């Protein structure tokens, strides 16, 4: 019980750390989705042009 009183307050660092994880993961997934959509549209246009 007493030891709990002396645990350092580092909660802000933990929040910052997990924010980084969330931002990096969401950022990468978003980039994948955007590139996929762009590539799909481009393939369709190029296929149409070939016909």
């Amino acid at each position: 019980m007493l030891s709990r009183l002396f645990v350092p307050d580092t909660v802000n660092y933990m929040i910052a750390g997990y924010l980084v994880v969330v931002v990096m993961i969401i950022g990468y997934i978003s980039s994948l989705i955007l590139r996929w959509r762009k590539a799909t549209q481009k393939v369709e246009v190029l296929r149409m042009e070939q016909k």
Partner: protein
Amino acid sequence: MTKNPLMLSILDVLSGVMVLVAAGLVFFYAPVEAMMGLVQKVFYFHVATAWVGMLGFMVAAIAGIVYLRKGSPIWDITGYAAVEISLIFFLTAIILGSIWARPVWNTWWTWEPRLTTAAIVELIYAAYLLLRKGVDDPERRARFSAIYAIFGFFSVPITFISIRILRTIHPIVIGNAEAAASGGFNMDSPMKLTFFFSLAAFSVFFADLLWHRIRLGKLQGEIEQLRIDS
């Protein structure tokens, strides 16, 4: 091509659930470490993202070897996909380590062996992406990338063993720590469960992202081919 295969959709759900469960274990199950406080919880995803980074670099090296033997473009796409994803995860691990180090080591960054070798690995693979951008011919690009990924991978085990063979302040949580290490701790059972579950969750998540990125790579390859044909 545009519709997700059923297995990939299942993997999407599985990886999403596993990462959320891992986060739940980190926040609600793993105990608070007494010396460092809540920042120690960064450790679970720090190691998991670093592991996935190294795993992807290994996949890229293996894909490079297979490409040089078989010459199929799918192995070039796989290697490229693995490096791209791993760069993101490895950078995340480096940033998480820096955030953890600030309250524990009293510095954001120090040029000790693990941090230095990790930064070198990140730069080596960032250069891999630049190399790919610099070569127009797809076959030459794939061949150069394969060779680069194979030789680049030598930096990964050096990073892994650096804290085990050199004098460093970076803690070793599994195995014997160097006497100068600072910020180490002994894991109890809930910590071990959270740690290993996080590793498994991020491994599944990596496989899921890799599959998606390979599909994107195939589509981009098709665009390149259609442009050459037209």
